[in-house]
C-alpha cells in the first residue's frame, strides 16, 4: 500500500555546498540518500514529493559539516498482510515462484499455487494448469495476496498466495506474444 507521509531526517552537508543553491543541494542529496531505501516501519521510500521544512544547520566540530534537520513529504510503499498486489514473476522453480511488485520481492510457494497447476521444468520453467490454459512463467503478471511479510533493515520480503478467488495470472507474456 502506498502512503504519502512526512518524514524527517538529519542531513549532513559539506561546507563546499554552502552558497546560493544550498537548498537545492540539500534536496538533491536528500533524494539521493533517501529514495529507494527501505525502513521497517514505513517501507520503501518511493519518491520525495516535497520538502516541508529545513531546520537550522548545526556545524559539526572538526569537520565543518553541517547538519540540517529536514522534513520532507514522500510516498512510501509498504506491503501488508492480506493486501492484494499485482506483481511480475521474476523466477519460477519447483518450490514456487518469485515475483516483484516494485521493490518488494514476493515468494509464492507451490503450496500456495492452486493444486491444478503443475510445475513444468525446462527451458522456461512454469506452472501450468492441466488444460494448459493458464501458465505462470517468468514475466507473467500475477495478482496475489500477501500472507506474510518479513521486514529487514534493507528489504521487505513477502510470501503470497494465488490460491484464492480472483487471484492468479492477469497477463501472460506467452499468450500475447
Amino acid at each position, binding site marked *: 500500500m502506498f502512503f504519502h507521509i512526512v518524514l524527517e531526517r538529519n*542531513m*549532513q*552537508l*559539506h561546507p*563546499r*555546498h554552502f552558497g546560493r543553491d544550498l537548498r537545492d543541494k540539500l534536496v538533491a*542529496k536528500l533524494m539521493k*540518500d533517501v529514495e529507494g531505501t527501505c525502513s521497517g516501519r514505513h517501507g520503501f521510500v518511493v519518491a520525495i514529493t516535497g520538502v516541508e521544512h529545513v531546520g537550522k544547520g548545526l556545524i*559539526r566540530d*572538526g*569537520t565543518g*559539516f553541517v547538519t540540517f534537520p529536514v522534513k520532507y513529504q514522500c510516498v512510501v510503499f509498504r506491503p501488508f*498482510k492480506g493486501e492484494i498486489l499485482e506483481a511480475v514473476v*521474476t*523466477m519460477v*522453480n519447483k*518450490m*514456487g515462484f518469485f515475483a516483484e511488485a516494485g521493490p518488494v520481492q514476493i*515468494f509464492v*510457494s*507451490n*503450496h*500456495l499455487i492452486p493444486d491444478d497447476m503443475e510445475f513444468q521444468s525446462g527451458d522456461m520453467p512454469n506452472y501450468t494448469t492441466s488444460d494448459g490454459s493458464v501458465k505462470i512463467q517468468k514475466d507473467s503478471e500475477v495478482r496475489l495476496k500477501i*500472507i*506474510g*511479510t*518479513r521486514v*529487514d533493515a534493507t528489504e521487505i*520480503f513477502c*510470501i503470497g*498466495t494465488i490460491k484464492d478467488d480472483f487471484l492468479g495470472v492477469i497477463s501472460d507474456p506467452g499468450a500475447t506474444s
Partner: protein
Amino acid sequence: MDDLGPGEEEDEDYIDEEEEEEEEEADAVRSGKAGGRKRQRSEFIDDSAAEDSEEEEDDDDEDDEDYGGGGGGRRGGGGGGHRKKKKTASQFFDEEAQVDSDEDEDEEQGEDDFIVDGGADLPDEEDARRMHRRPLLPREEDQEDVEELERTIQQRYARSSHTEYDEETTDVEQQALLPSVRDPKLWMVKCAIGHEREVAVCLMQKCIDKGSELNIRSVIALDHLKNYIYIEADKEAHVREACKGMRNIYASSKILIVPIKEMTDVLSVESKAIDLSRDTWIRMKTGNYKGDLAKVVDVDNVRQRVTVKLIPRIDLQALANKLEGREVPKKKTFNPPPRFMNVDEAREMHIRVERRRDQMTGDYFENINGMMFKDGFLYKNVSMKSISAQNIQPSFDELEKFRQPNENGDGDVASLSTLFANRKKGHFMKGDRVIIVKGDLKNLKGTVEKVEEDTVHIKPKARGLPSTLAVNEKELCKYFEPGNHVKVVSGATEGATGMVLTVEGHLVNIVSDTTKEVLRVFSDNVVESSEVTSGITRIGDYELHDLVLLDNYSFGVIIRVESEAFQVLKGVPDRPEVALVRLREIKCKIEKKIFAQDRVKNAIAVKDVVKILEGSCKGKQGPVEHIYRGILFIYDRHHLEHAGFICAKSQACVLVGARANGDRNGDLVSRFSQLRSPARVPQSPGKPRGLQMSSGRNRGGRGGHDALIGTPIKIRKGPFKGYKGRVVDVKGQTVRVEMDVSMRILTGKFYRLSRPFYVHGYPISASITSFALCAVDREHLSDNVNVSTPYRDSSRYGSGSETPMHPSRTPLHPYMTPMRDPGATPIHDGMRTPMRDRAWNPYTPMSPARDPWEDANPASWGSSPQYQPGSPPSRTYDAPTPGGNYSEAGTPRDSSPAYVNAPSPYLPSTPGGQPPMTPSSAYLPGTPGGQPMTPGSGGLDIMSPVVGGDSEGPWFLPDILVNVRRSVEETAIGVVREVLPDGSCRVALGSSGNGETVTSLPNEIEIVVPRKSDKIKIMGGAHRGATGKLIGVDGIDGIVKVDDTLDVKILDMAILAKLAQP
C-alpha cells in the same frame, strides 16, 4: 554388593544369608541412590517383590538369564513375574549405601564379622543354597544371632529402621550415606578383559574358602567397565593380598584408589527413564541398521528384547546368491540403502518366500531366509541393548517413509502420539495457539491459558464452549497460521527461521528466511519468533559460507550448517555436488586469497562480479566469494539452490564490469585496490592516517598479500642470490618464494627480493616497487633506469606507464603479460593514450582520464572548485578518488581493508636510503597529506562522494626537503617553498633551497626520508604540519619528538619528511 542404605533391622535379619550373595552379585550393581534405601532381598522376599525398584527388576531380568538354573524355580512367583528373591547384604551394605544387589542366588548366610567388622566367615556355598530356599519365616531365627549386630546398626543409623523401608529418604539422609574417609575405600584393579565377572566370582569363592583371612569387603564388576574390577577394602595391602594368585588379575599393575567423591558414581547407574512401549520410535545402535529409525512393535521385558519394524536394507541379489549357495563375495563395504521389501521381486529372483502366521499376533508374515517381512517392513527381534530409545527425533522424511506403504492416516496419529512422548516439559506456554488433534474436539483451536502437568487449559476460539477447556497435553498440537514468522527449535533444521506457508495438520511448511527453501517441520518443533536466522551458522571453527578443505583434499563451501554436520558444496565445477560432512572430516579452512583468471585472462579476485559463460549455470552472475585451485565459488542471490552458491571454473567465467561508467570505475578501483593495495595505500585518501599506521604493522593482512602473491621476484642476497621465483605467500615481513628452477619454496624477507622485470601493464608492479625497489640494488633495476621519470608519473597506476617507453618489453616477456595485464589494463590505460589502442584492453573507456579529473568523478564533488586547489594534480587524484567513492558501490567490504592493510609493503623501503628513482617513496608522504582533511569521513557515509574529494589535500608541505626529478636520470634535491593549489609545488633547488626555483608536479617529487636526529616535518595525521626531531627509527615507525609539545610520538616513517635546513 547389594544395597546399602541406612541400616535396617531387616538387614540384620538376613545378614547371615546375604553376605555371600553380595559377592556373587558383584556384577549386578545397582545404585540405590534414588531410593536411598538399601533393599534387601532374601529368598523370602519373593513376596515382597513389589518393593523392588524398577531398576532392580531390570537386573533381575538379567540375573534370571544368568542364573536361570538356580533361580528358575522362583521365577514368575512375584508380581514382577521373574523376580527372584533377593537377599540383602548385611550392614556391610548399609555402609555402602548406594548399591543394590540383585543377585538372588546366594546363600543367606552372611557373617556379621565379614560384613561389618571386615572379617566374616562365609558360609559355604551349599549352605547358601539351602538357605536360599528357606521360607521367609526362618529369618526370625537368624535374628537372634545378629542381635548384637542389630544394635550396632541401629545405633549407627538411628534414623532408619525397617519400617521406613519403603519411604522416600530425604536428601539429608542420603548425604549421610555417602562414603567418608572412615569408610573402606574402593580400589580399581586391572584384570583380564572379558573376565571381570569371573574375577569377581573367583574372589568371592576365595572369600568363602579363606574366610576371615581375606580382608576385602566386596568386589564389583561393572558391565560397562572392561578390564577393571573394583575391590572394596580398607587398605591396598588387603587388596593385593586378595588378588594374589588370581589368574586373571594383573596384580603387578597399579592398584588405583577411587576418590571418595567418585565412589558413588561407581555404584550408580543411570536411571532408565524411558520404558519402551509399542509404537515408540527408536534408533538402532548397531549393525547394518545403525542409526536407522525403527518402530517398536513388541516388547519382551522378560527377555529384554524388542521387536522392531524397520525399513529393510537388504541386497536381494546378494541374498539370492547366498541362498543358492553361490559364493558371495565378502565385501562389506557398502550398506544397501533402505528400501521396502518387494516380495514379488524376491520371488522373481528365486528367493523362497514363505508366508507364515505368527502365533502370537495372528498376523501373517513373509519369511525370507529367516527374516520376517510385513508390508515391506522388516520385523526384527533385537536386544534392548542394541537400540536407543532416548531423544529420538525422527525427521519428517523418515516418518514419511514409514508411512508410505500403508497410506492411511491411522499410522500417522500413532506416530504423532509417540512424537509427543518426546516432548519436553513445558512444551506449551501460556498464550500459545494450539489445536486439538485427537478426540471429539479435534480441530478445535484455542490459546493456552494454563498448563499443569499433563493437562493444558485452553481457551477455545469457537463460541458456545466453556471459557476454558482442560485438555490432555497429548491431544494438543501447536498451531500456526500462514504468514506467521517462526523459528524451528528442534529437529534437523533447528535454529532456522522462516514464514509459515501452509499448515497441514501438525505439519507446517515454512519458507526459510535465508535459503528461501521450503522446510517441512512439525508444528511442535517451531515457535513463533521475530528473529531472522538461518539456524546455527557455525560448528567449531567453521562457519557458514567458509571455504574448507576436506579430508580427501577436495574442498568446498559450507552452504548449510546442520546440527552435527555441514553441507558442503564441493568444488566440482561441472555439476553441483553437495556432500554432508562432519566436523572431523574437515581439514581446515582455506583463507588464502588467490587470484584466478577468467576466460579473457582478467584477474579475478574475491568479490569481483563474474558472469558464468558455460555449464548448467550459464548466464548466472554474482560476486566471487571464494577462489581455490582455479575454481570460483560465486554467490548469486537469485540462485536458490545451495544457498546461492555456484561453483564454476574460473575459465568459464568472465569478469563483469559494472554497468554505469562510475560504477565501472568503482569496480575497477576496488579491484585494483585489492590487487595493489600496498601501492595505493600511501596515496589513498580517505582513510584516517591512524588506520594506516596501525595497519602498517599487520602487513600480513589480506590486502597486503594479494598484491605480492604470484609476483615474480629475484633474490638479492644469501645463498639463493640471483634466483628467480614467484611469491607464493606473504606473511608479515617474510615471503615464501617458489623458485623457478627447483620448485623449492623458500622463505625470505621482503628486502631480499627484487623484481626482475618491470612489465608494463601489471598493476602490482607499483606496489612491488614500493617495497622492492627501495631495497634493491640499482643494477637490478637497470632496465628501468632510463624510464624513471615516466615511471614515476605512473607509479600509482602501475608500471604500465612505462610501456610507451619500452614497447619492446612486452614481447620480451610475453609470459608475464597475461598474468599481469588483467589488473593492469584498466589502470594504466587511462593515463597512457598509446595504451588504449591495445586490443586486450577492454576497459579503456572507464579508466579515469588524465586531465579532467572531474570526468572520472561524480559531478557532485568533482566540479566544486574549492577543492581543486587542495587536490594534487589530476593524475594522482584520479586513482584514489574513485577508490574512496566507490568502495561503497563496488566492493564495500573489501576495499577498505585493502587500504588498511596496504601500507605495509612500502614500509621497509623507508629506512633504506632509496635510490632516487624509487617512485613509490615519492608518493608515500603524499598520502598522509590528504588525511587531515577527512576527519570523520569514515562515519559520514552519506557524504561519501565528497570524501574522496576532500580528503585529497595538498600532499607536500612547505619547507620539506625533496628530491626533484628533473629529467630521466637526473634528480636534484630541493626545498618545497610553496604548494600550489593544483598540487604541484614550487621547489627551490639545493639542499638549503637557495638554488633556482622550479615548479614540479607532485609525481616528480619525492620526499627525502629523514634519518635519525634529522629535523622532520609531519606530513599526515593529527600532527600534520608540525615539526619535530626524529630521535629514532624502529622498523617502519619513526620516533619523533614534536617541537611544539615536546611529546614523543611514534609515527609512520612514511609521513615524515626531512625538514630543510634554513
